[in-house]
């Protein structure tokens, strides 16, 4: 049986892992490769790294930390953050990343999704979408780390992303992100009903119940950052609870 995935997310700034609260305040949390190895041993199914550095020489630092993460990580990982061309995406895959995620650059230039998919395969292209619910009850896509509204409707954007060839949707609710009040389950349901590719839910995880609700809303995977970084949820405990709730999960032993 296909299991539901638990994905810790690590934000990387200048080669160090930091965690953004509401896309803003940052506090240092460590070395990407060390944290990645620990998460793998705890039973994470996959990891997502978002390079949030704004610097123009990001490519250099990104190359360094991606290579170092790949060295001892034997579960899949995705790298995102400012990827602006298929060649850059291919370089990250060559360094050892399994997938790349596109966000702002895909909105600015949707053809980038298909160019990356034809170069790397759909399985390697994740479309990351940051959304906020509007007064009309629809979700609007935001870019540039959640700072810029686009006027794009979430549902039409994820459908377009799928038809352009992305292999997964990483759906972040900005309304829920950082609240620890639970994922935006209505948003997850709406997206899962609209596309036939896997959906990763993100934003709002605070306790085990939230993960169960997201999976019951149709999410194939659930991503979280701070609850894992600060140890308020331990992955082995979470997986036990999910299994007891009837959610199929992978139970992994320690890799020494």
């Amino acid at each position, binding site marked *: 049986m*296909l299991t539901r995935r638990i994905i810790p997310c690590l934000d990387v700034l200048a080669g160090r892992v930091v965690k953004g609260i509401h896309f803003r305040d940052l506090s240092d949390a460590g070395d990407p490769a060390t944290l990645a190895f620990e998460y793998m041993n705890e039973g994470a199914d996959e990891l997502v790294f978002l390079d949030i550095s704004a610097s123009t020489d990001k490519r250099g630092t990104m190359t360094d930390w991606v290579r170092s993460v790949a060295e001892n990580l034997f579960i*899949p990982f995705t790298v995102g953050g400012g990827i602006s061309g298929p060649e850059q995406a291919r370089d990250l895959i060559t360094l050892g990343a399994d997938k790349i995620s596109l966000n702002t650059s895909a909105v600015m230039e949707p053809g980038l999704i298909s160019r990356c998919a034809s170069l790397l395969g759909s399985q390697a292209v994740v479309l990351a979408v940051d959304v906020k619910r509007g007064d009309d009850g629809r979700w609007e896509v935001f870019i540039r780390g959640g700072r810029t509204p686009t006027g794009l409707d979430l549902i039409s954007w994820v459908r377009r992303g799928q038809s352009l060839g992305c292999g997964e949707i990483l759906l972040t609710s900005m309304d829920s992100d950082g609240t620890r009040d639970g994922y935006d389950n209505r948003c997850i349901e709406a997206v899962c009903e609209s596309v036939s590719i896997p959906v990763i839910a993100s934003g709002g995880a605070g306790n085990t119940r939230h993960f169960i609700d997201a999976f019951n809303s149709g999410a194939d995977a659930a991503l979280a950052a701070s609850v894992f970084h600060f140890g308020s949820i331990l992955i082995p405990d979470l997986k036990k609870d999910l299994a007891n709730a009837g959610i199929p999960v992978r139970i992994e032993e320690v890799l020494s």
Partner: protein
Amino acid sequence: MIGIIDYGAGNVGNIRRALDFMKRESVVLVSPPSERSSMPDALILPGVGSFGPAMSKIGSSGWREALHIWIHDERPIIGICLGMQLLCEGSEEDNTIKGLGIFDGKALKLKGTKKLPHIGWNTVTWPDSGKSPCFYFVHSFALPVCSDTIAVTSVDSCVFTSIARKGRALGFQFHPERSGSAGLDLLGESLRELGV
């Protein structure tokens, strides 16, 4: 020494790093060694992407003939993901080009699944042992259950071959090199079983 075939359509680095971690010596081979004596003890055929272009690259890099001889001599080979499909007779993904023809049948597009590609950790069941650990899959095509099947996996109503074996040829539809300790353990055991 384990040779990892680099024909331009595989994630060679991740396999090499997994073998390094397992303390198994490996070498990346872009083209077949000209001297038969310098061939490695076993070959790993990775693969990412689609069947047609991958098979064409195998042809243009000189690997097709070398692999036919290798297979004829019953030397150990492991195909991973698309690499496993390349070891089949062919694939529905591209009917104009033949596969390497070891495993019995053609890779077909998964049918009866709610979502494609099939991405994620799924259970692999050895019918004889009752064991069913999870491994990481990323694919849309697979070999149906056939006489070479030794383990199966199901997605919704679709059941396919997740491990095939014929003689000293082994195929994994999943990625043991991305499947944590279970994957590395299986890769290590398999190499030992193949006498490497």
